[in-house]
């Protein structure tokens, strides 16, 4: 029974983690290829879900077509325009001005969302109706399974693209060493644009999967951004794989911690504490620990560059 419960928590943790991985991978990609530390990542995710809702209402279309439309809008605004208008002109001043500009952008998006759609949380449709399936005593929700499946398909497709196609490998090369990529004749600027487009796509996908559970709310970008950040740093931001594993790790920790911290029995006493509000503290402490002991991330590698 104990173990069974643990497995159930693990499954929903993996589902959450899969979404977090989507949030973090694009974040890490931008960071690697262009040095953009995108503090507006969470707001990109948050507003994408509002765009999907808006399109559904406006065009009277279903969730899936609205998602694909929103994806193109997102790729144009948060991919193409974001890079051309904000990142390209600022990158030459170093990374701090760009960090601050993305903070400003995040605030603009959050405030506009609050103004246009209000401060209340809006319900968001899920891809499938949640039914509880029972596998030999294991209770697993279909929503979780679909989330895991969709996220894994997206992540696998991304990995295949990055590893098995020449363009994908050129993007990886750009991320690993931009100067050498340039010397070899790789169109570095185009590769960077592709990462921005991919990030926009991942952001919309994350919005599609995360919002049914958490509702659409203008202020949730802060949490999403924090998660992307933590996942990328804990896992190792200089690798896609690092951010991926970081995302899953945080999702699993999150689910386990919420449950197991709810009844913490202090040894040698009768006192039981409910520490579940501190579930978020665990990845935060992990983050600080990683920075202390392994700043390149648990699965990252030390940077070595020369030219």
């Amino acid at each position, binding site marked *: 029974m104990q173990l069974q419960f643990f497995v159930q928590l693990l499954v929903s943790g993996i589902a959450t983690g899969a979404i977090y991985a989507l949030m973090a991978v694009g974040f890490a990609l931008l960071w690697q290829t262009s040095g953009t530390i995108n503090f507006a990542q969470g707001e990109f995710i948050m507003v994408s879900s509002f765009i999907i809702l808006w399109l559904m209402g406006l065009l009277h279309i279903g969730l899936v077509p609205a998602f694909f439309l929103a994806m193109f809008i997102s790729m144009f605004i948060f991919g193409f325009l974001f890079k051309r208008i904000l990142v390209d002109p600022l990158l030459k001043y170093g990374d701090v001005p760009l960090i601050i500009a993305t903070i*400003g952008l995040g605030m603009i998006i959050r405030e506009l969302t609050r103004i246009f759609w209000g401060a209340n949380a809006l319900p968001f449709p899920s891809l499938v109706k949640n039914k509880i399936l029972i596998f030999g005593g294991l209770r697993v929700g279909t929503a979780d399974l679909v989330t895991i499946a969709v996220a894994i398909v997206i992540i696998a497709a991304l990995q295949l693209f990055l590893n098995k196609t020449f363009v994908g490998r050129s993007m990886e090369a750009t991320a690993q060493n931009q100067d050498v990529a340039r010397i070899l004749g790789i169109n570095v600027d185009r590769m960077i644009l592709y990462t921005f487009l991919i990030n926009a796509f991942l952001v919309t996908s994350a919005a599609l999967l995360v919002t049914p559970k958490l509702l659409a709310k203008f202020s949730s970008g802060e949490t999403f951004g924090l998660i992307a950040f933590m996942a990328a740093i804990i896992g190792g931001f200089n690798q896609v794989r690092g951010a991926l594993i970081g995302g899953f790790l945080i999702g699993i920790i999150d689910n386990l911690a919420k449950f197991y911290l709810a009844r913490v029995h202090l040894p040698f006493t009768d006192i039981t504490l409910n520490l579940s509000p501190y579930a978020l503290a665990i990845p935060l402490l992990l983050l600080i620990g990683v920075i202390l002991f392994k700043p390149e991330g648990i699965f990252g590698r030390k940077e070595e560059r020369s030219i």
Partner: protein
Amino acid sequence: MSSKLNSTIQGQQLVKTETLKSFDYLTWGLAIALIIGLILAPLWLKNYGLILLCTWAFRTVAVQGLNLTMGYAGQVSLAQAAFMGVGAYTSTLLILKAGVNYWLALIIALLISLLIGFLIGFPALRIKEGHYLAFVTLGFANLIWLVLRNEQWLTNGPLGIRDIPRPSIFGYSLFEPIRFYYFSLIMLALVTLVVWFILRSPWGRAFKALRDNPARSESLGLSQTTYTLLAFAIGSAFAGVAGVMQAGLVEFIDPDSFVLWRGLLLVMMLVVGGSGSLIGPFIGAAIVTLLPEWLRFTGEYYLVIFGLGVIIVMRYFPKGLAGLLPFVKKRFFTREVQS
């Protein structure tokens, strides 16, 4: 006749320029007029205006602290609002729950913020490359918020703490808005003097040297890590003081007053005003405090406008509005001297 002589090499030519004395007169005149204006402000401002100025004052103190970290040491701290929370809650709880004297509570709040600054700055600043301080302070800001919300027995949770007292000195209460205003003004003046002093001390010069040429200063035996850590810790202590000022002014604190995005807002105030400049924080805090008042018609759009302003400033004047000053000086108050 000339106040300063500068030599610069333009092309192959040595050009001597001098700053006109009128520039010094003008800046000093403006500064003195501003100070007198602030002192006399209660003559024509009602309570509301004074409260705005008090808000401006504590924000400036917090941003001035951030200026040490970001402007001079070149590191990003996202937890400045969290440190304000540390200061506000420490002093308030000491006063209300332990009956500690206001001024003692203020000093303890300052010291605790300083100590925490050292504790979290140390691991983050060991690594010079990258923005680890930003990441650690991001984590810290969230942790503080969690604690403030969840330790209800101590902090009263999300409901916050009401009826926070204002100080009195030698039995003379500073409760009245006008008195609290002068209290805020004096605190602001003190903090500004401290920063001014730091920047002019050998220590401050080392800072600037580090900022302008880390490699060279390092070889002169200055430890970048130590200086950055000191800057960050002192800057955090200023935030603690600002938090105490805010608690007294608003007479109410709650966790949401010190969440992450408030810290981000302080960062934006600094860069818009001009980081690395003594007057930058004054300008940045004034803009955020006065913008919603001036732009009444913009209503809820004021943060959107401010966000746009941040991006435009980053794009066109990366040195902030205060960065325009040297430009004005060079353009209008400098002439070439024949040598």
